[in-house]
């Protein structure tokens, strides 16, 4: 389905692109990432990442700073060339065909990179020329809704307004793929709400695909369909959100005797506590765990679904503690 394309072949061989076109008839995934690896010097930013993003879904990308989220997004946009593995967006190579790929993508960068010297009106007029799907009325409506003064220069906008301006030009041309890199970072709750509403509306409206990376896991939990956790460049967890939430359980165990050290139980991802009460987090294997706990002299006092926050903390720390 997706081939490991060497950079020279990707650029010079039209035959390869023909094969690529015929391959896309089989799959309708918007983004196909195949064994993608990338190092910057000695640091491994991505390590054998493979995934297909289906259309019409909200795809949440989470991980700590430096886990490789922005690197992955840059590969999708063609700003990084795939040296090991391949990336295909809309069935095309984003490096080889920037117009075909980028013309259907709305992108909000992490640092809200916009030309500082332009006014909002100039920015809208400038972007209109690049995207055939630009809806002028919709753009004006968004501008009014975001309360942006068209004659205001971008360098004079506050952080929240800047994010709104970036979101405006990402949404106004009704893109097939919306990519938001840390959209909520450093923003007040009002702007965050705007951004989340915009994501929901895009998905609900025409079944557009949204890829967004975030630290705010409660937002990811509200809005994502599928979540991928990156840890040091590797995919630590990649599953639909409802599977993750239904699979993981948080148990509070009450031991008869105080435990001096961590009670080792099978299938536990993380431990917390001291003395007689311990909170453990596990993914499946509940019966085994209950039996083992009973053997160790513990009683299950509480059993709940953990939040995404707790799951990911447990997962991110697990390799270190293992």
């Amino acid at each position, binding site marked *: 389905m997706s081939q490991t394309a060497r950079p020279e072949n990707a*650029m*010079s061989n039209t035959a390869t692109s023909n094969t690529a076109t015929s391959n896309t008839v089989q799959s309708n995934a918007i983004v196909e990432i195949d064994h993608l690896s990338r190092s910057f010097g000695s640091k491994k930013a991505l390590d054998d990442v493979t995934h297909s993003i289906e259309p019409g879904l909200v795809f949440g990308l989470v991980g700590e700073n430096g886990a490789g989220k922005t690197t992955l997004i840059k590969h999708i*946009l*063609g*700003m*990084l*060339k795939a040296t090991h593995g391949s990336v295909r967006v809309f069935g095309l190579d984003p*490096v080889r065909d*920037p*117009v075909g*790929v*980028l*013309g259907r*993508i709305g*992108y909000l*960068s*992490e*640092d809200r*990179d*916009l*030309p500082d*010297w*332009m006014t909002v*009106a*100039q920015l809208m*007029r*400038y*972007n*209109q*020329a*690049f*995207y055939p799907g630009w809806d002028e009325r919709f753009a004006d409506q968004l501008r009014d809704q975001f309360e942006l003064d068209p*004659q205001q220069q971008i360098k004079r906008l506050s952080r929240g307004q800047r994010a709104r301006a970036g979101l405006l030009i990402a949404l106004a041309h009704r893109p097939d793929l919306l990519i938001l890199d840390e959209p909520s970072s450093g923003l007040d709750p009002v702007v965050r709400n705007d951004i989340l509403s915009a994501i929901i509306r895009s998905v609900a409206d025409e079944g557009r695909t949204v890829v967004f990376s975030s630290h705010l896991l409660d937002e990811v939990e509200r809005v994502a369909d599928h979540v991928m956790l990156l840890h040091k460049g590797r995919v630590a967890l990649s599953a639909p959100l409802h599977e993750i939430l239904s699979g993981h359980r948080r148990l509070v165990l009450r031991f008869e005797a105080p435990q001096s050290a961590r009670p080792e139980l099978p299938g536990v991802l993380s431990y917390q506590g001291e003395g007689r009460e311990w909170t453990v987090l596990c993914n499946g294997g509940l019966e085994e765990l209950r039996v083992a706990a009973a053997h160790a002299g513990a009683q299950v006092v509480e059993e709940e679904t953990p939040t995404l926050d707790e799951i990911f903390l447990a997962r991110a720390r697990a390799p270190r503690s293992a």
Partner: protein
Amino acid sequence: MSHAPGGDQAMNRASGQTLRKATALAWEFWAHGWRGFLWGMAGIFTIPGLIFAIEMGRPGGVPRALHVTGSLLCLVPFYWVIVLALGALIRPSLENPRLRYTLPASSPLLVVVTMACAMVAMFVQYAIVAMILNALFDTRWTIVGPGLLAAVLIAWCQAVLLSTSNSPGLRWFAILASVVALVLTVARWGPVIRPEKMADFLPGVGGREMLSFGLATLACVGLGILGFAKLRHGSGIDLRWIGDWLSERLDFRWAPRAKPFSSARAAQFWLECQERGYVLPVVATMFGTAAVVLALCVPARHITNGKPTDFAVFATILMFSALVAIGFYWGSRSPNLDFRAFNGSRPLSDGQLATAVLKSATLGLILSALIWTAFMVLVAWIVAMRQKYSMPLGAVNRTDVVDYLCGTTLGALAVWSAVSFITSLALGGKKVLGVAFGLFFGCYVLLPSMSQSLPYAFQPDISAEAYFKGCLVLWLVLCAAAFVAGWRWHLISVPTLCLAATLIVTAVAAAHFAGMPFERRYWPHVVFCCLIPLPLAAAPLAVCVNRHR
């Protein structure tokens, strides 16, 4: 002053703290800028390197090239070029990071330490460059006098920068006014631009010079502290209200043209012009104005003893050095030459992005050429009027006009090609620039001059001329390879190739009629003409390399 032990201890502690703070500030200055200083000094040698490389092409070999380069560098104008270049490199370290405002240090301490470091940096850099030039080219530059002058100039520059952080317009005006004032002052010391040897420029630093330098430095320090303190406490000069007032008045008249762009390429071209392209015409206007002011104010005898066009020629030489820097600026996509998120995610192919940059550069060059010519004609006329020089408008020969036109065309094409090539290198990012720089210096400066210093037995049996011609052929091969690669990777299209062919034909024709006919013995000139369209292929390749890392 208390003589009690406690009092002395307190004073010692205070001065110890001040010393520690000063040391930390000084460390920051050097740690921030040392790489820039080193690269800058290396970059300065591009100018003599270019001259040396060009002279190498002529028969006579390395010794002759060295001699010619040395005699050109003896001249005072090169001092000013080098001072400007070094100052431009130190300038980023002189800026006002907002961070400094909240440091627990007094404004005088902050300003004095930075200024002292900048002055030392300038003096040391100048001294090193001068000593190297003396050693390589035997130019006999004086070190102490001009070095101190350069240091005082950088202090003045910093004082201006510190005081005008809020207002770029005011800053430009202040710098321009300073330049004009400086030239007027220096004119008192002797002819401004008459070819004067550096050996006679500030040869001795006597009491009078030290006093003037000292007073000037104190003035700089005072102005710097005043300006910095005002900015630090939020009451700096802010001319934004002028811009706001103007935009309010002009708003209804200058209603934003709601017409959308005709195509993505037109939009990108507009962006390039608005963001970077306008710089050269603006700089040309400002320098032109300064030149006119100088032509009007400087005592006539100091401007020139020869033709009225001398001053214009000198100013144009300075302008050419600026072209190199501006060509570089046109290609740089961001302060560290990377494609940032907005520029990199434009839905345009690499070739289209490169074309937008080149078009904007070409438009900038054409506009500036027109502006500059107008100003220089005005300057020459003013000087002629002041000197009551009668310009004999004798019979204008047809061959003269043709010669002149062809020479101008060829010159214009060469300038366009050189500046666009520098833009292409900057488009390629740091790696491309580093490689190009290294290759240029290695092939054209180091290798030939080092081969001369090898023992006779190891000296290669190639004449300098043959080496130069061989390099030229290599350039031609690289140019052809660039076009082939661009074609294969769909970065350039048929119209570009047609344009390249047109440029070559025009250049060859111009050369032919300007005295270098299309004969076998003039083949290097034909090769030069064939190199002219190189930027058309280099720019898209550079974008491709830099945009998709």
